[in-house]
């Protein structure tokens, strides 16, 4: 076959015009220009001009029909934003909860849970272990009290003169709850047969000096058997964790430390706080929570010491 014949039989490439050209044609037509005038202005074939005008009247749009390529996003930014906002507001919300929220809040058919999961992945959400937040922590009363406390002390608390004191129980027999193993193989962890005793750690921590003083107490069970007979009933005993007596002795030991008597001989402060003026013994502020063992005569002991 000759080259000339090949060129004739070759399929002519379909010419495409931009959305701007379509818009220009439609605007000219709406302003009352004739087809020949539009052809002269745009240098398009008359058939093309007629087709553009006809299609714009049919579709009420001057944009070209989407052909091939990447699919457009089915779910708009409003759905994506709602899903992300809902998940930020409530980390415990499940994918089904979010799907239900989209169904209620927006006039669209809700997407499937896989799509919602993908939206969250794209927005950098990851699955984590939830940590419990006590309900009372954010009650209106507590928030108001917290505000008043901050407003009263925030200016006087510095890294040099503040000492945080708290106690926390620890178990030395806890095991990890998450691990890895190959697919199809169970992931097990060896656990101790007997539960060990809990330990309670009391610590005093001035930010400028690090861990200043700490002590450990073995927590005794608050129940004991009435008799040695097998199957004997248990009775409640007094508190055997950190009691006020233990806390009082901790405070007395703490206040005997050189830091509270001769600030110039105290432990060297880190670079972040070295520029601050050392606090005198009277200027230290002990910050602790509202646990019952921190009340009573503890305040009197601190001031008398």
């Amino acid at each position, binding site marked *: 076959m000759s080259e000339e014949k090949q060129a004739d039989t070759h399929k002519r490439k379909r010419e495409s015009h931009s959305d701007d050209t379509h818009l220009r044609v439609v605007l000219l037509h709406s302003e009352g220009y004739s087809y020949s005038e539009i052809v002269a202005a745009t240098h398009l074939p008359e058939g093309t001009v007629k087709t553009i005008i006809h299609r714009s009247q049919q579709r009420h749009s001057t944009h070209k029909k989407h052909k091939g390529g990447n699919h457009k996003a089915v779910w708009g930014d409003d759905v994506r934003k709602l899903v992300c906002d809902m998940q930020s507001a409530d980390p415990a919300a499940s994918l089904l909860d979010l799907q239900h929220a989209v169904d209620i809040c927006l006039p669209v058919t809700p997407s499937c849970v896989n799509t919602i999961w993908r939206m969250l992945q794209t927005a950098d959400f990851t699955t984590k272990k939830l940590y419990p937040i006590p309900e009372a922590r954010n009650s209106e009363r507590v928030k108001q009290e*917290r505000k008043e406390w901050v407003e009263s002390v925030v200016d006087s608390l510095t890294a040099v003169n*503040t000492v945080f004191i708290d106690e926390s129980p620890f178990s030395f027999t806890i095991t990890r709850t998450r691990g890895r193993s190959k697919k199809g193989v169970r992931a097990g962890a060896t656990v101790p047969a007997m539960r060990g005793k809990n330990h309670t750690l009391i610590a005093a921590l001035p930010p400028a000096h690090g*861990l200043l003083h700490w002590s450990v107490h073995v927590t005794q069970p608050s129940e004991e058997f009435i008799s040695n007979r097998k199957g004997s009933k248990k009775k409640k005993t007094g508190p055997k964790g950190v009691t006020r007596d233990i806390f009082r002795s901790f405070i007395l030991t703490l206040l005997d430390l050189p830091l509270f008597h001769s600030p110039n001989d105290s432990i060297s402060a880190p670079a972040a706080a070295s520029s601050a003026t050392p606090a005198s013994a009277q200027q230290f502020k002990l910050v602790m929570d509202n646990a019952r063992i921190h009340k009573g005569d503890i305040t009197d002991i601190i001031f008398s010491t």
Partner: protein
Amino acid sequence: MKLAFRTFSHETEEEVDAAIKQAAATITPTDSMHWFQHTQSLYRKCVDLEDL
């Protein structure tokens, strides 16, 4: 290792004490300052009555 006391099981009280001492030594003034600054950053939320 800060969490050594959680990684290994301890048979005796002496081992427990040693593990606690080891963990206590890892708490540096720099760590304390970091958390103090974090606490200070929460004061604004408290004044604005936000949830913590």
